[in-house]
């Protein structure tokens, strides 16, 4: 069994004057509802040109031997915008709903319902070509079927 651990630390000495902020958490990433660790991952570094919406990660048809909409897989997605110009950002969204902007240097980490095509992760670069780094941890994603 593989062990994947994700930790976060959020700190600020001046956000709430008189009370320093220190939030931290650590989680071992498990298969859905189990205490068995995730055993698959895919990752990459991509340059994203502007004005095109790209899909990141698999479709539901890759989320297991039989595609379903049960939202029942344990999967986690990390994305980092490696760009350095503060005016650069990547919109990220779920299907057609924009959720936020990943500015240069920002990272994100979410549990991701990857088992539904309507939940596909979409990204779109703004200002200029952005470079992103990503990693997707899961247990059920299959490789795309080869062309005949």
């Amino acid at each position, binding site marked *: 069994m*593989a*062990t*994947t*651990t*994700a*930790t*976060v*630390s*959020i*700190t*600020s*000495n*001046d*956000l709430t004057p008189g009370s320093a*902020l220190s*939030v931290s*958490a*650590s*989680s*071992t*990433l*498990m298969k*859905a*509802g*189990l*205490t068995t660790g995730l*055993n698959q*991952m895919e990752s990459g570094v991509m340059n994203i040109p502007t004005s095109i919406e790209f899909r990141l990660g698999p479709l539901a048809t890759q989320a297991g031997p039989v595609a379903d*909409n049960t*939202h029942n897989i*344990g999967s*986690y997605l*990390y994305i*980092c915008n490696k760009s350095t110009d*503060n005016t650069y*950002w990547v919109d*990220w969204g*779920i*299907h057609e*709903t*924009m*959720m*936020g*902007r*990943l*500015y240069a*240097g*920002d*990272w*994100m*980490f*979410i*549990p*991701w*319902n990857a088992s*539904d095509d*309507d*939940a596909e992760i979409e990204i779109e670069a703004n200002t200029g070509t952005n470079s992103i780094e990503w*990693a997707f*941890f899961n247990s059920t994603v299959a490789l795309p079927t080869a062309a005949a």
Partner: protein
Amino acid sequence: MATISASINIGSDISSYPIAISKTMTMKKAGTIIGLDETLGLKTKKFNSTTAAEIATAADLTNDGAHKLYVRNASTNKANFFYVAYHATDAGAATAETIGKLYGGDWMLMPYNGSTDINVASSTTDIQYLEYMVFADGVVAAAG
């Protein structure tokens, strides 16, 4: 201007080569080098039903901002989870709006544009605690 730092470390032995992701960001206002300086506060909420609850309200926040949302399932039971969803007033079950499921001990941190509400719903009537915090790139005057 405040300085808020967020660091992530991911280590794994899934593959035969080491996986060690380490990254720190400073939370900044949209398109600037100015740090975020507002928050709606760190909150802890107890759930003992599957009724959905809103944890981030778009109407409270500047639209299209560089907000950040931190959420953690503060319980330890890996069999139980919270649905995290956008828009849906009922975040439970298999809605297309589900972002993902936060199992016991899991956490998430995501950029959030303040244009949609974020909702959660517990998967169980067992007691679960959720910890969450919005780091805001602008809170509307009437909210706080």
